[in-house]
């Protein structure tokens, strides 16, 4: 799976995710990627793109849950994402997210996640583990 989230200079957010799915999946299987709210979500508050085991990500509506935790518990992006990822079976999910305020987080409960981020203030990171 691949994905990207961004917030532009005007504060608008967007999320995109694309995948081939699982190796040896049944023909006709649909995973989390195209299911809005599960694998991909964006509103005026933040944008989220996920990767991992689609069935678990759908069950836990991971992308929408990150936003909901921010909305309803008032948590910052990083804390909201960590909380949601911790609630999904270990080894099954990773996500990248940005907020309208320019915050970035990359959370996962797998061994690693190929990931990268950059912000306007000059911070950037490319990592696996």
């Amino acid at each position, binding site marked *: *799976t*691949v*994905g990207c*989230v*961004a*917030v*532009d*200079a*005007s*504060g*608008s*957010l*967007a*999320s*995109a995710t*694309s*995948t*081939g*799915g*699982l*190796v*040896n*999946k049944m*023909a*006709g299987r649909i995973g989390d*990627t*195209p*299911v*809005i709210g599960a694998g*991909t979500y*964006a509103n*005026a508050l*933040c944008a989220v793109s996920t*990767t*991992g085991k689609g069935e678990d990500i759908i069950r836990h509506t991971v992308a929408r849950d990150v936003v909901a935790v921010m909305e309803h518990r008032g948590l910052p992006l990083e804390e909201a994402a960590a909380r949601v990822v911790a609630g999904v*079976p*270990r*080894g*099954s*999910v990773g996500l*990248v997210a*940005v907020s*309208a*305020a320019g915050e970035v987080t*990359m959370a*996962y409960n*797998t061994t*690693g*996640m*190929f*990931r*990268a*981020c*950059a*912000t*306007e203030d000059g911070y*950037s990171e*490319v990592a*696996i*583990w």
Partner: protein
Amino acid sequence: MGWAIALHGGAGDIPRTLPPERREPRLATLRRCLDLGAAALRAGRSALDVVELVVRELEDCPHFNAGKGSVLTSDGTVEMEASVMDGAGMRCGAVSGLSTVVNPISLARLIMEKTPHIYLAFDGAEAFARDQGVEVRDQNHFITEENIDRLRNAKEANRVQIDYTQYNYTQPICAPNDNDDDNSRTG
């Protein structure tokens, strides 16, 4: 406030012993895509344009599981999926079951912008792709030797695999049971 971007190329059981010849091309693509996206944001492009631009680049890279390099179904076919969401107005578009569209993410955006719907799949999505004139290729374009081997190994073990995942993170493809949600089979 300011612009920001984050991207991923999949998660899973990525061994720390991953050889450089498998690690470096992926990291190089992430760096290139990050630079591309950051430059576009710096130039004033919208967040929606940037996420599509970056994901298209990742789809075109055979080292990642999307577009060219997509993993195979049990039938040895490619069935690609993508979605996009615009936070401003909460518009969205999604596709499933694509086997010939070079950049599924752009088709998802066309569904968002040119139809009254959110989600098209399989034959209907392929027909829409042809109506829109997006680039299509024979299915063989998307299939790599590495993914043929991965399918062969997965079939022998009767498993499905998420990105990069070794067998200790996989589950039987058949017969889910009452313990389907527990962690016991995920290592």
